[in-house]
């Protein structure tokens, strides 16, 4: 029946009004438009980050942009071990995995399988909470290292540069007193703003997921006859994953 309805519907003239020209529901279209505007928000932050970083790349040693590998090199319970990129890769893996469980929930919703939707939504929520916990640890470590919104201690003094030179610019290396000084302010500021903004999106995503999970439990979508709300929550959740791909690339890899 539903398929016949869709077929009849699709015969309507597309741009003559009175129907959705993109053949998606009103709610889903609005979600896409919101995501597009959110993409612009994140882009403006990343453009700012790129321009700031490049304007510090070639200047004097002491105001050089800090090397992320020498700062984001911690891992829980591995104190003092130089492990760049490892923790953030684990975070990426968690987010990709929770994206998969989300899309499996959407797929189960297409089959109107309430039980499966519940299971997968619960896994997705757990993934989101795990990611947020990791990010809290990452922030705590970064703040402990001396990063603040308005200053940070990741600049290198002339003495520090000579020290670094003496060990052949190795990655793993203990700073001595007087080696470090205030680094470029945007380094920590943009880290906090961009990962904070992303983390807030993850938090909102978890809240949305909890709401639709409870709605599923209470059988709201079963009565409605379709699980499109899971799909809309899923679009938002995947967008958060998508933003993380670029945060990961620009803040940690490059």
């Amino acid at each position, binding site marked *: 029946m539903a398929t016949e309805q869709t077929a*009849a519907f699709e015969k309507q003239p597309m741009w003559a009004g009175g129907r959705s020209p993109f053949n998606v*529901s009103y709610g889903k279209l609005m979600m896409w438009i919101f*995501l597009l505007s959110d993409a612009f928000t994140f882009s403006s932050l990343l453009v700012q980050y790129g321009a700031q970083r490049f*304007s510090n790349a070639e200047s004097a040693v002491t105001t050089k942009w800090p090397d992320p590998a020498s700062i984001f090199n911690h891992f829980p319970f591995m104190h003092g071990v130089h492990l760049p990129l490892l923790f953030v890769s684990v975070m990426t893996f968690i987010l990709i995995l929770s994206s998969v469980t989300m*899309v499996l929930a959407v797929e189960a919703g*297409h089959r109107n399988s309430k039980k499966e939707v519940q299971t997968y939504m619960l896994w997705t929520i757990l993934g989101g909470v795990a990611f947020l916990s990791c990010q809290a640890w990452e922030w705590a470590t970064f703040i402990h290292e001396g990063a603040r919104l308005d200053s940070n201690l990741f600049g290198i003094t002339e003495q520090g540069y000579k020290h670094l030179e003496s060990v052949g610019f190795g990655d793993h290396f203990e700073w001595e007193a007087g080696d470090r000084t205030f680094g470029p302010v945007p380094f920590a500021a943009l880290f906090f703003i961009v990962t904070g903004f992303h983390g807030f999106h993850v938090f909102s995503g978890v809240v949305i997921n909890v709401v639709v999970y409870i709605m599923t439990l209470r059988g709201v979508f079963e009565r409605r006859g379709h699980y499109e709300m899971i799909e809309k929550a899923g679009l938002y959740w995947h967008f958060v994953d*998508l933003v993380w*791909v670029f945060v990961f690339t620009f803040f940690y890899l490059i």
Partner: protein
Amino acid sequence: MDFPTKPGEYDPINYVPHADSHGTKELWKTFWILLGITVFDFVIYFVMPASGLRNVIFILFGLVKAYYIVGAFMHLKHERINLALMIIVPTIFIVGLIMGLLYEGNAIGLMK
């Protein structure tokens, strides 16, 4: 029930097109691709010294991951081309803006 033959006979705000399941095969394939690219990122990070080329590789990998997330997970591959273009075309301009401002940022750095 004949649906919807005349305008005004249905409520466009509540109309939800019927969605079919495509199965989970494509989704798991996408997961393995994303995981593979992330592992590859990780490997390149350690085996290749930092350079402009390495950065370009990372950005290209990021765009490939974005393609799979948006195409398969967000289902845009299976939506109408109108919708896909409305979303993708403006973001292409952002890539241009980023390239332009990196160039300008670099020029500012040289003058500092």
